[in-house]
């Protein structure tokens, strides 16, 4: 059932917010035991919120577009009074002193937040396995990873525990777990959603985005959270009105040109996923769209560029975790320097430390030009590549991931192996364009396959239009 349909029931009085929540609470408790998808759960807070909403509606107040809808939030965002750990020991004791703008907007629209979801530590990971609180399991196969870093947020939607969730995407951390779990996950244009209150990993790449069961729900959530925020200096101010993303999902795509980059369909991609993309292309042609092969020649360098820029920015953003004002402090420091070093050494996980090291090195004197500056220049070249392609096509169609969900422990030995699984999602973050992963059936083992769409900067409306059309095509095909 869509969020809109549920809200209609609430508006008509057919169901109360409290009743709705009571339906979901058992699913949430069971889900947590099965999947380890939450770091903190606060049913009492949720029950109280639902009750207040019911009272407000009974008093004749208008229902928001998310009235009563149970949602979950990735644990790298703030909700005042609740824990925010980023999946790390170093923030295990941290209680949010304020609320993230995007979260506030959801609550103002009536959403009932039931908990904070598990994630790779500081959003650094593609499987959920770097979390201090243990990995989340994929609801479709408990021996497999759900993807990462927004592992819990994807899993709880896929498992039917909530109707929507928020994640964050720095190199694919919404889209990849969405593909692995069989749900919709969307990364907006950089700057469309405020980053105020999102605990920073890489400031020029991070974006908050929605997970949902279907395209319309994701669009509805983006309607709520998008918009200029003066508290975020990288927040984009639309010159005209922001499109209604839900309305966009209903429009047709006759005459749309879809480009499939040949570098995204080459070796390394599973045959079953490749076939699914080709099949999607055929269905699109039948529906009146045009399919072209395009080229993004710098694709093979994308992971390398990312693994300089993201760790470099992270090394700066994570310098604040020093045990002084909040978070973990080492119990018996020798002196102030030891207080810093031991708090960080004991508080951070190994992947986080690895990336801080990479980033510090890439920014250090003597290496800055060869690494960081070089990567920023290649980033400009990548942007030019995409601009060329978007002069030719309206939407880029590609796989989201090279494989379906792998087994827990399969890629943890070799960090580089894990990094390479981000190949199809990572470019979007580097250049700031919006992208979405939508479910495209399952493979021969029953594991979800995701199909990715990308659009030019600020064409999030067009993205939802294409996503809605493809979703409809799949539904009709069944």
């Amino acid at each position: 059932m869509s969020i809109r349909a549920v809200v209609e029931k609430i508006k008509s009085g057919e169901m109360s917010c409290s009743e709705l929540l009571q339906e979901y609470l058992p699913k949430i408790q069971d889900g947590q035991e099965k999947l380890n998808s939450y770091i903190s759960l606060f049913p009492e807070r949720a029950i109280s919120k639902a009750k207040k909403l019911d009272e407000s509606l009974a008093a004749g107040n208008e229902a928001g577009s998310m009235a009563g809808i149970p949602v979950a939030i990735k644990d790298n965002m703030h909700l005042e009074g609740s824990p925010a750990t980023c999946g790390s020991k170093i923030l295990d004791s941290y209680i949010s002193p304020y609320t993230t703008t995007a979260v506030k907007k959801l609550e103002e629209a009536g959403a009932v937040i039931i908990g904070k979801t598990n994630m790779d530590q500081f959003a650094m990971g593609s499987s959920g396995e770097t979390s201090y609180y243990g990995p989340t399991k994929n609801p479709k196969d408990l021996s497999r990873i759900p993807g990462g870093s927004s592992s819990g947020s994807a899993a709880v939607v896929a498992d039917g525990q909530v109707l929507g969730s928020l994640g964050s995407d720095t190199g694919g951390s919404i889209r990849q777990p969405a593909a692995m779990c069989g749900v919709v996950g969307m990364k907006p244009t950089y700057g469309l959603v405020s980053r105020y209150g999102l605990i920073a990993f890489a400031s020029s790449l991070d974006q908050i985005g929605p997970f949902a069961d279907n395209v319309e729900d994701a669009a509805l959530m983006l309607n709520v959270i998008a918009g200029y925020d003066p508290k975020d200096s990288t927040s984009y101010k639309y010159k005209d009105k922001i499109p209604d993303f839900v309305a966009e999902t209903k429009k047709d795509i006759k005459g749309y040109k879809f480009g499939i980059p040949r570098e995204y369909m080459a070796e390394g991609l599973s045959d079953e996923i490749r076939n699914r993309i080709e099949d999607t292309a055929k269905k699109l042609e039948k529906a009146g769209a045009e399919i072209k092969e395009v080229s993004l020649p710098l694709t093979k360098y994308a992971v390398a560029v990312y693994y300089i820029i993201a760790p470099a920015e992270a090394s700066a953003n994570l310098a604040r975790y020093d045990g002084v004002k909040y978070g973990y402090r080492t119990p018996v420091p020798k002196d102030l320097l030891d207080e810093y070093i031991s708090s960080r050494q004991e508080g951070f996980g190994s992947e986080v430390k690895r990336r801080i090291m990479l980033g510090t090195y890439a920014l250090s004197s003597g290496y800055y030009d060869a690494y960081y500056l070089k990567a920023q220049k290649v980033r400009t070249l990548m942007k030019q590549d995409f601009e060329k392609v978007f002069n030719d096509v309206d939407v880029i169609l590609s796989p989201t991931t090279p494989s379906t969900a792998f087994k827990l422990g399969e890629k943890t030995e070799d960090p580089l192996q894990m990094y390479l699984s981000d190949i199809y999602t990572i470019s979007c973050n580097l250049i700031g364009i919006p992208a979405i992963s939508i479910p495209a059936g399952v493979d021969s083992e029953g594991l979800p396959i995701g199909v990715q769409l990308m659009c030019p900067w600020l064409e999030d409306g067009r993205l939802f239009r294409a996503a809605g059309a493809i979703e409809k095509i799949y539904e009709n095909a069944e």
Partner: protein
Amino acid sequence: MDIKEVEKVAKLARLEFSEEEKKKIPDQLTKILGFIDQLKKIETSDIEPMTQPLGDEMGELRMNEDRLDEFIKKENLTAIAPEFKDGFYRVKKVIE
């Protein structure tokens, strides 16, 4: 990266690795840096670095007014401090 370089960078990053970690870290970092080295092949001498994904569309860089804004709920901040007393965050002695 060799172990000496690792120790130097670690000091800059305010990290310190255990003996166990020191066995693996140099190799892991060397391998990743080796992978990153392929960027050398790309010609970038006339290219401007990208620092901002939306570039010109973002418009002029916004500067905030130079004014003090009070964080309203200070008790939220002091409540989560490891050690807070008399309006100060307490740390190990800095001056002898």
